[in-house]
Structure formats: structure tokens, C-alpha cells
């Protein structure tokens, strides 16, 4: 579900302090400010508004991403005033959510590979990475697989591969990782629940 432009406007009316500007009898005069200053507000009005959830602490605050319909890029992110917990408010990290988008020049955008004893990363494609990783996983698993433990009990486990993470991905991704780890027989499985 995507909230409408109207939704964005109504939701921002009554937030935080519980005071709606529109309810205060404010005279909405024609916009007289300068074009460059106006730009962002106008862009928001014509943008697609997409709801997401904050990716830091576990309060689960709602956020609204304003997406430029022409470029498909996010250009503004602020609180979702309809959200019953956050009511539009955000802390420092949430308020800076925009800096996690591709606007942040530090984002990883390429598959990187470092060969043994290499001193730098090399750019690779997905095909290389996935097939190579699959091969490494299989070789490592098969070599160190423990079918029976020292007592002779059937254990079918792989103690040579560890998996860590992540509490910072979606439920569906968590489940996929949890299940694939078990199918592989991994036992060193952990994530940030412990840190």
C-alpha cells in the first residue's frame, strides 16, 4: 500500500505535539517564496510516497520516502505521522535515514573480490561470485563434514563454516538464512541477538 499525496499532507498536519497547523486558523497565502526554496515542497507534492520502517533500534518507527516519479530516486525521507508509535517523530538516526540511500557515496555498488594474498579489491560480477562461493561452500562443507560424533551418534553437521547475521534484514531474509544454514548442516549460527 502506498499512501497518497493527500495522505502525506494530512498526516503531516497533526504530529508530534498533537497540534495541527491547519486547525490553528493559519491563513494559507499564495506561495511567495523563491523558486529554489519552493522546489522541494513542490517535488514532494508530486512525488510517490512509499512507506518503510526504520532500520535501527527495534521501536519500528514509520517513515515515508518521497520518490521522484521521473527518476525513481528517493529525495526526501521523513516520519510517518500516521504511525501509532512514532507519530511522525524520529531520533537523530531515523531523521538521517536519507543518508542510507544511494545518495550516500560510500554505499557498496559492486561485487568485490579479494584473491588470496591480494592487497586490493577487484570488481567482479554476480555470476563469478555466486558460483565461486557455492564451490567454496561445497568443498569446505564436504571436507569437514561430521556425519557421526565421537560417540558415534548421527549428527550430520558442518563445523567448518560459520554464519553470522543479521538482525538488520527483513523477516523473510532471516528465515531464508535460518533454513539454508540448517540445510547445509551449519551449527555455528548466530547473529546480533547476542550483542
Amino acid at each position, binding site marked *: *500500500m502506498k499512501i497518497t499525496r493527500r495522505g502525506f499532507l494530512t498526516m503531516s498536519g497533526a504530529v508530534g505535539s498533537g497540534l495541527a497547523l491547519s486547525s490553528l486558523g493559519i491563513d494559507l497565502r499564495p506561495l511567495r517564496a523563491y523558486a529554489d526554496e519552493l522546489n522541494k515542497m513542490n517535488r514532494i507534492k508530486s512525488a510517490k510516497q*512509499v512507506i518503510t520502517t526504520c532500520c*535501527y*533500534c527495534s*521501536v*519500528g518507527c514509520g517513515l515515508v520516502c518521497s520518490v521522484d516519479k521521473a527518476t*525513481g*530516486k528517493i529525495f526526501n525521507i521523513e516520519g510517518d505521522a500516521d504511525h501509532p*508509535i*512514532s507519530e511522525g*517523530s524520529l*531520533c*537523530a538516526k531515523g531523521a538521517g535515514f536519507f*543518508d*542510507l*540511500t*544511494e545518495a550516500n557515496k*560510500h*554505499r*557498496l*555498488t559492486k*561485487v*568485490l573480490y579479494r584473491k588470496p*594474498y591480494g*592487497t586490493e579489491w577487484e570488481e567482479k560480477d554476480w555470476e563469478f561470485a*555466486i558460483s565461486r*562461493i557455492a564451490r*567454496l*561452500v*561445497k568443498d569446505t562443507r564436504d571436507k569437514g*563434514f561430521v556425519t557421526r560424533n565421537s560417540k558415534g*551418534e*548421527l549428527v*550430520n553437521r558442518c*563445523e567448518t563454516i*560459520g*554464519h*553470522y*547475521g543479521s*538482525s*538488520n*534484514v*527483513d*523477516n*523473510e*531474509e*532471516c*528465515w531464508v*538464512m*535460518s*533454513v539454508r544454514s*540448517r*540445510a*547445509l548442516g*551449519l551449527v555455528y*549460527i*548466530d*547473529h546480533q541477538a*547476542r*550483542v
Partner: protein
Amino acid sequence: MTNHYCDLKNADVILIMGSNAAEHHPIAFKWILRAKEKGATIIHVDPRYTRTSARCDFHVPLRSGTDIAFLGGMIHYILTHRKYFKDYVVNYTNASFIVSKDFYFKDGLFSGYDQAKRKYSKDTWVLEKDGKGIPKRDMTLTNPRSVFQMLKKHYSRYTLDKVSSITGVSKENLLKVYEIYASTGVPGKAGTECYALGWTHHTTGSQNIRSMSIIQLLLGNMGIAGGGINALRGEPNVQGSTDHCILYGNLPGYLKMPVASLDTLEKYLHKCTPVSKDPQSANYYSNYPKFFVSFLKSMWDNKATKENEFGYNWLPKLDDGKAYSTMHMFDAMYAGKVKGYFCVGADTAVSTPNSNKVRKAMENLDWLVGENIFNNETYEFWRGPGVDPKKIKTECFLLPASASMEKEGSQSNSGRWVQWKYKAAEAPGDAIPVGEIEIKIMAAIKKLYEKEGGPNAKAIVNLKWDYLDSKGRMNVLKISKQINGHFLKDTVVDEKGVKTLYKKGQTVPTFGMLKADGSTSGGNWIMAGSFGANGENKMMKRGKDDPTGLGLYPNWSFAWPVNRRIIYNRASCDINGKPYNPKRKLLEWTGDKWVGDVPDGPWPPMADKAKGKYPFIMKQDGVGSLFGPGMVEGPFPEHYEPLEGPLTKNPLSGQLINPTIEIFKSDMDKTANADAKFPYVCTTYSCTEHWCSGALTRWQAWLLEMQPELYVEIGEKLAQEKGIKNGSRVKVHSIRGQVECVAMVTKRFQPFTVEGKTVHQVGLPFNYGWLFPKDGGDSTNFLTPTVGDANTFCPEYKAFMVNVVKA
């Protein structure tokens, strides 16, 4: 959280202990302040005066690692001053149960301790049963072997003087907190507790929380609006990732990981399914086989059959009694046993204790796969400080991932609300969602096994793994429904005489319909009901109606289990189902049904001896456990000193440290208790402006600008003694490592008087690493020890010993 964020507003007293809510959960703190506006008293107990303390009614400083002493003192106070909620304690807890005659406690140890194994045999930690197998009870609570009397006796040693001497809290402050908090032990008042890593990051972490659970049960605060025990968890989906159990010891839905001795499904189910002979105990976990078999079906679908025990033996099995947590993994990696490592959305080279050991351990890896949105110290360990890349054999992959707003899916908040989020934009460059990366890698592995075979290849080749759509992208909805569960054949369900036909392939609307015969699948039973039988995705719901006025918002997203917003909610009513506090009516029995929140089961209240059930339906005995034999340290929490502390003797017993913690023994696992070279108690924490290891937030200029580099907070008195000026550079050492950082001299750390001596405490954030920013300092975890809670292996980040010197 037993309750949820909006519910914090319903409390009359909020004890924030083991949490710095204002800094780490600023929006949760909104609800705490809303309670305050309505007259609630907010108490902050923390070693350091923080932004939370600044907005509380008062702050009580406590020496790190002494929470059980503090809370034990409160239990003692509640019992001796008769502040407990008697009706609740008698009916809804095991206070009236009788403890086995063989059980004892002596000088810090419970019965059954094996010194060599550092483990207890729990054989004597049992409650007596009558001839029918129903627990014996003494409703007068006067039997000296009753749990109530045993509890009273156990905590009689936690006197004000003793507690004050251990914790460094003045007696006046202790009494102030005890009195105010204990005032909630009446029907009309609710007290809640907010904790976070300040409680879990200890060698006694689980018992810290259990101590509070005991208090909440004594005061009748469990299961009520404005009550409960609320873990303010630290990551966006740590609730979900825990629910799906990316954890060595559990399978999705907290099902138990099979161990080697349980070689058949039958044995496993027998062991894991609790039995109660008490007809009034719902003992909901008697349904365990349904959840477990449905999970196996979700993994292997039609390849899992009754004949092959639904694939039970394809699952890996742990050795009995052995743990495989992060610390164990790095210990094994350090010993050269772990050769390959997937590090997904994490920065373990910064976040794991004893970073020197962790970074050294990684040098033994053959390969490393990183998946993240930013680079970090873990992925670049091969060229970290003091590491020569030309000597590191590890083959490394760093795979670009989509950020949160670049993918669709659900996240579970700490209040168990599973909220759907939408994709706002494409990820930059080649980045794709982590789930998609994992699906593709596993699909490639599966192909290899189909072609080449290998040990236990069936587990892989039979795996249901069709989660990419026609365009080769992750099919989120399909996975989500797989988690919810399906009917695998046409099924007629009889609900109170109404028969409904569910067709094969329909989503299961509630876990009550899961089956142990293989006719249903359920990737995670607690998530059953996140979809309606008609396929409606309830996680997307955005209804704002609040019929109870308590802020439950039943139509906003989906809360597990079965959209219940406050768990154990039947305990908010008396035995006849009438709310204890009519002003905050969470639930009420109207004679034929419950009205309010989704009740903990449909049965009548327990006064109905025929059909009625006890309120704590997930407990074997149906009541809250004051006596809790599930813990490895003992049924009653006991104060032990941290592995590293300022004392040579535990003031309460002859047992200095937690007798059941695992001691890691590698050459890099050094400790220094009460060592003059490391005289100051140190604790670590985060700050509002950064998140966890800082691996996401350090790359963000707005946030980095506010907290640009590593610092150590030092009290004015200690700074004066050491000649350290505010803003100057200092080195902080532990026996394991050191960090250099800026000294922040503050009035917010005050020395403690412990056992008559002055003990200084300092603290550092753990948000920095060498990779970025270059001049921001490195990981605080160079200082921390490899040791953790004996139940969960949550590392001890909160109490250890250091020295501070001018740089």
C-alpha cells in the same frame, strides 16, 4: 517485550534499569514521558547519568554488574514489607508449590553442582507432585518448603546494608526505589520495567531479567496494561531474526535444536513436549509436535514424509550440552577449525568481545563472504592495523546489498508488531537484497549437490528452494506465506461446531490449525496468522482504531502470537475473569467469551474448575515461575561478581563468580580480577547518534558530525587524580588490549563506595572502528573479555576492569 511500546504510557511506575531508553530508543522514551505527564514516576538505575537520567524523576547510580543484588534487595523488601499482590501471587504463580526436599542452597551454590564441569544437575530442582502427578500446593503460603517461603529465605540475606555495600547505592536511594516500585503491588497500579543490553550483557544476564520477573510476578504486574517486562531491543529486526532463530540452539519459532542423543523424531518430540497432569493447565506447548513437523514440512515439503521422520535426521544435531555461539565460533576459528565464514549485515571484528582474538582468528579463514550496504572492518580484516595482506590467505567476497528502503518485506519490532515495508527505490549499482543473495548462493550449492552429491546431500537437494520469481528476483510474498504456513491438502477444521473447509495451498489462519501429521507446513509457527486464510497480508494493516483506549491498535500490522498485543493477558483479571484494574481494562470475561485484547486462549477463567484454565498457558504448570528451574545457575537468581571486578570476595557467599559460566582458555583469553594494574570498573555502550558497531552510522556525515570519534567518560574526581583534562587524549587498557581516545571528563560518573572502598567506573561507546573515519579510533572491544551469560552466551560487555592513562 511482553507488552509493547505504546503500552508504556499506561504505567504508574517505570523502572528503567539496564537500559538507556532516551538515548537508544528515543521514540520509546516518548511513551515513557507520556506516562510521566500522567503522573507516573520514572526511575533510572544506571552506573552513569545519561540523557535518560536527565528526564527521569530520579537517577540512582549502581556499580556495573550488581543488578541481582539490587533486585534481590527489592524482593527482600517486598516480601518483608508484605507489598506483594497476594491474590495474584497465590493463584497465578508457583509460590504455593512445594519444593523438593532434596533441593538446597548453600554458600552461593544450589544443590547438584559439579565443580569439574561447571554445571548443575537439575535433578533436585523440582516441585513435588501428588499421586496424580499434579503439583502439590499450599495456598496459605506458610509451608516452609513452599516456593514462597523458600524465596523469602533466599533473599533474606539481601539486606539493605549488604546490598548497599555491594552495589555502591546509598541505603536511602535503595529504599526510595524499593518503596516506589513496590507501591505497584496493588490491583489498581501498574509498574513496568524497561531493560536492554545493560542487563543482557553480563555473565548473569538472564538471571538479571529473571530477578525482575520475580518482582513483577510478586507485584502482579505481568500480563497487565502498563506492566510486564520490556526488553527494548537494539536492532530493527532483532525480534524477527530471533523469532526465525538465526541462532545455534533454536529453529524458527524457538523450537529446540535437536541434539545428538535424540536420534529419532519420536525421542525428540517426547523430550521437547511438556506434559501436565493438571487439567487446569493449558500447557500450550503440548502442541509442540504440530509446530515442529510443520516446520520440517516447510523445509522439505513433499520430500519430508512420515516414513523418513519428515526429514528429522537431515537436520544437523548439536552435541549434548555444547554451545556454538559467536564466542564459540571465534574460539574455534582461532583454533583453525572454522574455515569459511558468512558475515551478513554485521561487523564482528568490531562488535565481538576481545577483538584482538577475533581479528587474529579471521586470519585462519580460507574464505569470507560479506554482505552489506557499506564496507566495514570485518570485510577488510586482511588489511587492518598491523596486518600484512600479503600474508593472509583468505579469499574474500564483499557483496553489495540493498538498503532497508530498497526492498519489500516485514520487520518485527520489540513489541512483536510485524510491520510490512515497501520498496521505495532500486538499490544502487549491482546491489540486491541479502535474501536474494542467499537464495542464489544456496540455489547454486543445491545444483552442485544434485550433480556431485556429498555427505547428507539429501538435506540440500530435497530442500524446497523456489523463492525466486520469474525475473530471478526474491519473491518476498512467497517466502512470507511459507513462513505463515499452508494447508498441504484439503482440510476440514471444526471450530466450536462450525466446520470450515480449507483448500490445499491456502494459508493457515492460525497456528491452532497446524498439524503433526504432515498435512500442514509452517515455516515459523508463531507467525501463523500473519496471513488470513484468504491470503490477506495482515502485516500490511494500517488501521488506527483503539477500542480499549489502551493503545493496543489491534488493526495496525500483525503481532505474534495471533495478534495478541499483551501476552499473559489473562493474568490482568481475577480468577473470575474480572479485570483487577477496571480503569485499564485489557480483558474481561463476559460469561461466554473474553472481550478486549486477543486472550491467551479461549478457555474460561480458572474459577471455572471444569473448563477454566490458568493464565500462563505457555508454562507447563499454567502459572508464573517464582521458582524457575529452567536457568542453568539455579531456580533463584543469586548475585555473583563479574568475571573481572574490583572485589576478591563475593560479599554474599564464597562463590565469587557465576559458577556456571564457560571459561574460554585460549592464550588470548586473559583476565585480571581485582588487579592493581587495572583498578577501574569499565562499561561499554552505544550512543544515540550511532548504531551498534557504527558500521552503518559512521559512514553518515550527519551522524558522524555529532559523535565524531571514540571517547571515554571519566568522572571529575578520577580525572583530577590522574591529571586528565577534558578533551585530552588518553589510553584505556585492559589485560587484553588497549584503545586510544578522547577523555570526556564529566560529573555524570561518580565514584562508588563498595565494601568500604572507593571504586571508580569509566565507560566507552563501542561504535568506532579503524576503517572509517580514519582518525575516529578503533574498537572498544579490544578491552572486553571473551565470556558471557551462562544461559545465552550474551557476552559480558558491561563490567570488566581497565586502567586509564594520559596518551
